[in-house]
């Protein structure tokens, strides 16, 4: 039974078209319209990034691309639908760490094979998580949180934007490496968590950099560490987790363009070239960096290799933390 439908509604197409000004007629690549699947609702991080990148690709190549939101089941529905489309180059989409690298180990029954059901086109960005605490917190830095956790196992409450999210698992990775016992308090997202973080109901919170950044700037939370290997340009004074004695610690949420498995190589190459060109655009780079992201780009087989490594990394984290859900 096919529960997934093709998007045929005029209003969706209209909505997509309104969002993309100046769509030129397709010239060199294809006369047909390309559907770009975003497996999350409009307005979220993946959606905004996808629209920014697609915008640049469209204006540089003249291809006709419609961004289509296909949310549900943490992105798994949209990715599953994308995996089942014909590999004719007219269906691509935006995957990220959770769908392509985390969920395959977390869930026993996701309806696609993350590594083999997709054609790897290219990495778009990577973005760290930030660990924050409330302004009056006794913990001046991450070392003091760790010391408190060692002294009183389980006493430190940490908030996350949900169980099994990259943020949750990043902190589990920290706990595993540091042999710490922390108590997990999941929230549906930063919006629901922020008042508990600000009032100190939970000791620390881990979330994506753009989600915590406005609250950091407003002074309502204080950043303790970022999860990337290098400090982030938008939080220049915030040290990395690795700098607190967690050698090699590096956890990030990356996003990448994929298509269904079996796309012809010339099409993959054409999309990869368009992506890399778009990521050279200064205005786009500035937007991405301002959001705490690092533009990546690079060859499609580099992405495929990175993807395989990431699958192993997160599988190990999930196994060590016992976070498997079913």
């Amino acid at each position: 039974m096919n529960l997934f439908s093709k998007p045929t509604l005029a209003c969706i197409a209209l909505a997509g078209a309104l969002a993309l000004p100046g769509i030129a007629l397709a010239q060199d690549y294809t006369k047909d319209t390309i559907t770009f699947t975003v497996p999350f609702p409009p307005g979220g991080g993946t959606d905004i990034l996808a629209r920014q990148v697609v915008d640049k690709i469209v204006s540089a190549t003249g291809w006709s691309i419609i961004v289509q939101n296909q949310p549900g089941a943490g992105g798994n529905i949209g990715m599953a639908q994308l995996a089942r489309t014909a590999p004719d180059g007219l269906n691509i989409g935006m995957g990220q760490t959770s769908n392509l690298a985390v969920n395959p180990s977390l869930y026993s029954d996701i309806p696609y094979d993350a590594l083999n059901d997709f054609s790897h086109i290219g990495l778009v960005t990577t973005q760290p998580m930030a660990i924050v605490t409330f302004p009056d917190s006794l913990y001046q830095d991450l070392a003091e949180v760790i010391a408190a956790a060692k002294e009183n196992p389980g006493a430190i409450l940490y908030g996350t934007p949900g169980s099994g999210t990259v943020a949750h698992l990043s902190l589990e990775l920290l706990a595993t490496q540091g042999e710490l016992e922390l108590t997990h308090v999941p929230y549906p997202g930063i919006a629901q968590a922020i008042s508990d973080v600000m009032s100190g109901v939970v000791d620390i919170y881990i979330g994506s950099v753009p989600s915590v950044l406005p609250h950091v700037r407003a002074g309502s939370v204080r950043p303790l560490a970022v999860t990337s290997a290098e400090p982030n340009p938008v939080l220049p004074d915030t040290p990395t987790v690795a700098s607190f004695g967690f050698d090699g610690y590096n956890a990030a949420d990356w996003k990448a363009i994929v298509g269904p498995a079996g796309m012809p190589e010339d099409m993959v190459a054409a999309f990869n070239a368009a992506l890399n060109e778009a990521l050279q655009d200064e205005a786009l780079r500035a937007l991405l960096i301002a959001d705490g992201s690092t533009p990546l780009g690079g060859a499609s087989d580099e992405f495929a290799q990175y993807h395989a490594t990431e699958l192993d990394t997160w599988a190990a984290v999930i196994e060590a933390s016992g976070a498997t859900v079913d």
Partner: protein
Amino acid sequence: MSYFDNLILGLQTALSWYNLLWCFVGVFLGTLLGVIPGIGVVAAISMLFPLTFQLEPTAALIMLAGIWYGTSYGGSTASILLNVPGSATNAVTCLDGYPMTQQGRGGIALLMTTVASFFGGSFGIILLMGFAGTISAYALSFSSAEYFSLMLLGLIAACNVSSGSILKGLIMVALGILFGLVGSDIYTGTRRFDFGILDLADGINLVALAMGLFGVSEVIASVGKVDGKKVDPNSVKLSAMKPTRDDVRRSWLPMIRGSSIGAFFGTLPGTGSSIAAFMAYAVEKRVSRAPEKFGSGQIEGIMAPEAANNAADQTSFIPTLALGIPGSATMALMLGALMIHGIAPGPQLMTEQPSLFWGLVMSFWIGNVLLVILNVPLVGVWVRLLMVPYNWLFPAVLMFICIGTYSVSNSAFDVMLVVLFGALGYALRVGGYPAAPMLLGFVLGPMMEEHFRRAMLLSRGDFGTFLSRPISATVLAIALLVLLWGLKPLIFNRKPA
């Protein structure tokens, strides 16, 4: 900048022709979508969201907000004339609004609900203007224990709303909670009651459930009737709208109580205008000397909920704009529109973007005035939409319901759910079970579970946390009183069989 400088800045922003235009577009679309049953505000805003990428952020927000509070005005029209809530916030207005139409007082109901809407809206805007700046300390004292207690109060109040017995109400709330538990458990990620269907992993879509339960079941119920329901064109003429002296006298207190209740629930994340309308109705029914007359066209039964939902629409901007905490899916979309434009929602918004904040707030005044014009002198235009013959209207309504549901997450599965819940809704209607408490149970059940479990996690398993926190204890005490109040007729006034 002083407070008055801010107000003037806001007026200047709101009165620029560009922002005025988008304010009008917003309230016009809001009224239209409110009048047409089946397309809810979340669906409407989701569909129009991409349009806002092209607008200036202030205009984008003014338009989205206009749709949001515009539907509460327009929604009462369909509730009163057709007994079909234009949107969930107006569901309770059907209970007494439609009987008024049957008694030939539909025009009065339309005028008076517009008055109530304007009154409630104005009340909400004044509170928003006064309190948005000082609200953050108040919100920080709310944690999971308080939210749980408040939602429990909301559910118990909802049982009292039901037109039948409180027992039927409780049954429906429980059924709603059961449906609400489908989907991922946020504490473990485990998927529950989903029969292995991936489309249920995020739970049952609220829009699908609401549209099936209220929209489709109404169509099924009406199709069977030979005559159908007709809107009498005379009922919406201005001359038919003149309320009696008695109507006006009986409307003041319900409007004031409704506005206060609405304003309160609007500020609480997770509650909002639907709950506010139910609560306002429940309170009116309880304070009335003749509660048994409710449901037979009592003007109090439309004034209080319509004042409440509009007050709540406006005050729901307080946590959204003052703290960046969206209280509902719609508010989350509005914050999404801000973030697309690179504006971070949060406590700093008022100081960093005063023209946006105050421009938006002042646009609410303009929007509310426009809505009065759209809904009183021009109500005939909207009613013409409702006068389309039913053999045309019903297929069209079903189509709009399907489009609206599909468009929320491009999911055909959700459209199938609409059919399922339409059938369930019709069965419940035949059995005399009220659907509104079920909807509330559906929305609040999973949130209560989330907050209950978080409160237990935070207190490390101590149930006392709900009683040791003063706000939570107070709310629980009120909830107990409301429950006893509702059970009173069952216990003390039981008539011999």
